[in-house]
């Protein structure tokens, strides 16, 4: 049994069947990609996993425990972190502070009334955050107001924030969209390194096939809310239906 | 100020009085009129102007050289018609400006709050416009005096007139502003009219903040009542009366009689605000500028005051102005007679003081509760006013005896004067 088991999940928006009977099993310590045409329901699926949306039917088990009906923060505390399709960071805070918050959440749980300690004197947290910034290649921007980062940097920051929590399951929704090629390559390397070094499972949604094929061990293709095929990258590349519905001629070529 | 036995004892050649009136909020115009009167009084005390009521006042110790030779100075402040703000303002006059007497105000809540403060601080409080029974009832204080009349006296003065105008077989519906003054006003007028034989159909409390009274007025006609008593003051009264007239109450018949409206406490400014809706409606006043002309010498001082005031400001004074003017002269007189600014000496000089010539006829400052007793004017809105100052006509002046009550009257019980406090 995989670390994440999605069974018969359905989700409708009015007349639109956004997800229809999705079944998915994700093996622990793997990198699993979900690809599919725009509007296939990929982000919707992630939303159901992290408590943003409640599926109409079905079950979602993380490490044998159901996540449905839990609040987003509870799900995160179970060990699931998510990077959003459009960057979600604390725009009013500095880059370093952005990085410290998940560190606190990791160490102190979902609420801590530590109102009388100086956050900058909390060496453990500061070091951890600085370390993570270094790892994300953003150390020079640590005092910048995060709202004025360029978009690629925002995304990198967000990935770093999620990683700093050392999640057991990391959900990435198009992490390299809008990233320059060099940074994309860096991110691929980083994710590879994380995959190899840490006890982590990664689910990645991506349209950049370069990223998908360099990272994924298994790929699920979602189309119109239903999984079309699930297989290894090589098989997917050659799959005629996938080529027609998703990859198109250029990518396949 | 240096301490010589009592708070703010004047050391130099001036003495400072504090005039604490509403300068903002709905009663600002009333406050402005009070302030005019205060300024006029100070002028007269300092020997400027024509002397006003100083020449008609029965006590003759004031000579236009200030108070006991000290020139009168004054400071002003804004009560905002809020207890807190009024106290803050009074405090600053006492603490910063060294005021030795505080006067003014336009609501009973404020008067009671400031009176309490003056008692604690050890200065004299000469109340301005305050009509609740409590000011000299359960909240009376040794350092405080009231020249204005009160709810009980209004009711007592109105009762005989109501009987004469509307008979003894009436059913009254009360609308009452839901705060201290409204409650005592309602209690007083209901008791007085019930004593005449009137029935009280309903007593309805209306929120102070209400601006539209339609939902309180509308059910009145169908309640079996034939008189509506509006225990409202200021903006409340203007609006409720306007609404009542809009609903046509004035033209209706009930129980075979003309439907009538009574407003126990009148003021010139309210009459102005209500415009022609006030026509024919009966109420009471502490004083009216036409008193001496219409009711003769008994009210001497009235014309002298109207003349100085009118010449300076161009219009006749309101009852609030007359009260504040009289309070200032009375204080100055008491100090002079006592020969000391010490509040306790002043209290002693004022307690039981009988005088005449300040426009209200013979008047007594009763020692037991520091309420003054004098005739009460019953007025009625004029049908065809000739000008904007001539909105009410005097129906009757109810003599002192009829409005006097014992110190321990149940409506006034529950408090104690305590002893005078010279502070410091």
């Amino acid at each position, binding site marked *: 049994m995989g670390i994440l088991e999605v069974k018969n999940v359905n989700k409708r928006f009015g007349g639109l069947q956004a997800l229809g009977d999705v079944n998915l099993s994700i093996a622990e310590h793997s990198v699993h990609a979900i690809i599919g045409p725009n509007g296939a329901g990929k982000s919707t699926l992630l939303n159901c996993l992290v408590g943003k949306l409640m599926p109409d039917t079905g079950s979602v088990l993380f490490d044998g425990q159901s996540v449905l009906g839990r*609040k*987003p*923060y509870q799900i*995160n505390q179970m060990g699931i*972190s*998510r990077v959003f399709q459009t960057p*979600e*960071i*604390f725009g*009013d805070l500095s880059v370093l*502070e952005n990085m410290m*918050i*998940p560190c*606190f959440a990791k160490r*102190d*749980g*979902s609420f*801590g*009334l*530590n*109102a009388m*300690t*100086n*956050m*900058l004197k*909390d060496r453990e*947290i500061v070091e951890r955050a600085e370390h993570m910034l270094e790892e994300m290649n953003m150390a020079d921007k640590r005092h910048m*107001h995060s709202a004025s980062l360029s978009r690629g940097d925002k995304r990198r920051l967000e990935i770093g924030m999620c990683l700093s*929590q050392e999640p057991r399951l990391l959900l990435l929704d198009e992490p390299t969209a809008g990233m320059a090629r060099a940074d994309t390559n860096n991110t691929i390397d980083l994710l590879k390194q994380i995959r190899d070094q840490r006890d982590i499972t990664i689910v990645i949604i991506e349209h950049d096939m370069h990223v998908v094929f360099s990272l994924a061990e298994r790929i699920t293709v979602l189309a119109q809310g239903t999984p079309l095929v699930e297989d290894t990258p090589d098989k997917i590349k050659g799959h005629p239906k996938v080529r027609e519905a998703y990859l198109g001629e250029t990518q396949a070529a | 100020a240096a301490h010589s036995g009592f708070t703010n004892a004047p050391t130099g050649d001036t003495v400072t009085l504090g005039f604490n009136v509403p*300068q*903002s909020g709905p009663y600002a115009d009333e*406050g402005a009129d009070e302030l005019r009167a205060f300024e006029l009084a100070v002028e007269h005390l300092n020997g400027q102007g024509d002397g006003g009521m100083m020449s008609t006042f029965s006590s003759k110790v004031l000579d236009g050289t200030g108070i006991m030779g000290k020139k009168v100075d004054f*400071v*002003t*402040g*804004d009560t905002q018609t809020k*207890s*807190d*703000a009024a106290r*803050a303002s009074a*405090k*600053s006059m006492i*603490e*910063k*400006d060294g005021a030795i007497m505080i006067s003014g105000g336009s609501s*009973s*809540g404020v008067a009671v*709050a400031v009176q309490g403060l003056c*008692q*604690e601080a050890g200065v004299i409080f000469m109340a301005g416009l305050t009509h609740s029974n*409590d000011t000299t009832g359960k909240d009376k204080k040794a350092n405080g005096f009231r020249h204005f009349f009160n709810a009980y006296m209004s009711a007592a003065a109105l009762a005989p007139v109501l009987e004469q105008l509307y008979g003894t077989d009436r059913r009254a519906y009360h609308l009452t502003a*839901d*705060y*201290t003054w409204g*409650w005592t006003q309602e209690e007083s007028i209901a008791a007085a009219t019930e004593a005449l034989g009137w029935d009280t159909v309903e007593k309805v409390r209306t929120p*102070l903040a209400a601006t539209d009274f339609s939902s309180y007025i509308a059910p009145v006609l169908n309640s079996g009542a034939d008189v509506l008593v509006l225990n409202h003051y200021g903006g409340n009264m203007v609006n409720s009366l306007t609404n009542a007239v809009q609903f046509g109450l004035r033209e209706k018949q009930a129980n075979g009689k003309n439907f009538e409206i009574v407003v126990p406490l009148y003021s010139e400014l309210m009459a102005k605000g209500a415009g022609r809706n006030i026509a024919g409606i009966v109420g009471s006043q502490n004083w009216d500028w036409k008193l001496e002309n219409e009711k003769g010498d008994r009210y001497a001082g009235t014309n002298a005051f109207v003349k100085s005031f009118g010449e300076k400001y161009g219009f006749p004074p309101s009852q609030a102005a007359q009260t504040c003017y009289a309070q200032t002269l009375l204080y100055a007189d008491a100090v002079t007679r006592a020969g000391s600014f010490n509040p306790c000496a002043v209290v002693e000089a004022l307690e039981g003081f009988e005088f005449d010539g300040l426009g209200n006829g013979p008047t007594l400052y009763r020692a037991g509760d520091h309420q003054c007793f004098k005739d009460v004017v019953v007025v009625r809105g004029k049908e065809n006013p000739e000008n904007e100052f001539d909105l009410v006509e005097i129906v009757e002046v109810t003599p002192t005896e009829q409005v006097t009550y014992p110190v321990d009257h149940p409506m006034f019980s529950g408090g*104690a004067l*305590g*002893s005078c*406090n010279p502070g410091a």
Partner: protein
Amino acid sequence: MLGLTKKDFTLFVVVIVMVALAPFLLNPFPQGSSLAQMFNAGYPDLMQRFVIFGILVIGFNILFGLTGYLSFGHAAFLGVGSYSAVWMFKLLGMNVIPGILLSMVVAGIFALAIGYVSLRRSGIYFSILTLAFAQMSYNLAYSVLGNPSSNFNLTNGETGLQLLLTDPRILGQSTTPDGSLPVTNFFGIAMRDSYELRLGDWLFTFNAGYYLCGIIMLISFYISIRIFRSPFGMMLRAVKSNQQRMNYTGLNTKPYTLAAFVISGVYAGLAGGLLSSMDPLAGAERMHWTASGEIVIMAILGGVGTLIGPILGAGFNEYFKNILSKINDSVLHQWLGFLPDGIEDFLVTIIHPFVGKGWHLTLGLLFMIVIIFLPGGLVEGGKRLGGMITGRTRRSAKAEAKQRNHPAE
């Protein structure tokens, strides 16, 4: 030092010195001079107000400045605190400590209940919920719960809850031997006791109540610095910035906002308790929406989310409120007396509408001027001034203003 960074510590010391020397600083003009009447603010009541409203706004700023939740009903806690303290003086005795403690506890409980419900909504919906609770409290206090003739007179209505000679005061005396009300005290030191120091023409008043309030304000201020610099404070800023991200980072925003709400409610209650301790009368107007609005205004005037802003905002507002209304024409004439008569009269006529009964007008204009020209409040103004002195350009101050969501001093 004291767990503060050097910069914060310096700021704290500056505030301590200002509070300690306020009787001098606020009385720059000799007693009796006409300028004194206009500008001197060093009398006990106003000085007490400066620090008490400082406490109130410091607390409000912890909620609004950090989390961005704009409570429009904070005056309710001020009122509840005031009533609680007066009740203590009526029932227990005139020592201010039980009153102050009770006011904090009661306001805290109120804040917990109101916050628990109101924080289920955000933005303008939250503001209106708090407003509705406060207006309800106000209306109930003004009439329903305040009728002296009913058995349940909790607030004494319009007049306000006051001490009576007949109050029990079980730990003290109902009346003093000479038949007066006892006065509020701190273990025997009467709050209204003052020591007056005469230096030439100058008269300085050192009031016991003021110093008690001042010390409490300093403690409150210190705590607020610590909160601003703490992880908790950062979480509150994160709430303001992006609640969604917080939730998906495993943080539960509810307890954070509720804690901030309760803390600021307790600050407000404390302020209320102190107001009553300085002047034992609690009026319902303290809970009116305009009072809540004034708290918001003081916070913005000073500079939202800054440490010193609340104190500046409260001082500014209280100063002008108390001073402007007391200026009348005769004061103006005295003040401008040195000018030739014609010019004097002309100036008096010009100034007249803005003072005395026109003080609201001036206050309104001042609000507008500050907020139009100093987005970021008085703190921003101070910074610009500092910038001008140290020769930085105005432009860079502006750029900094862009980042003013960072806690500044």
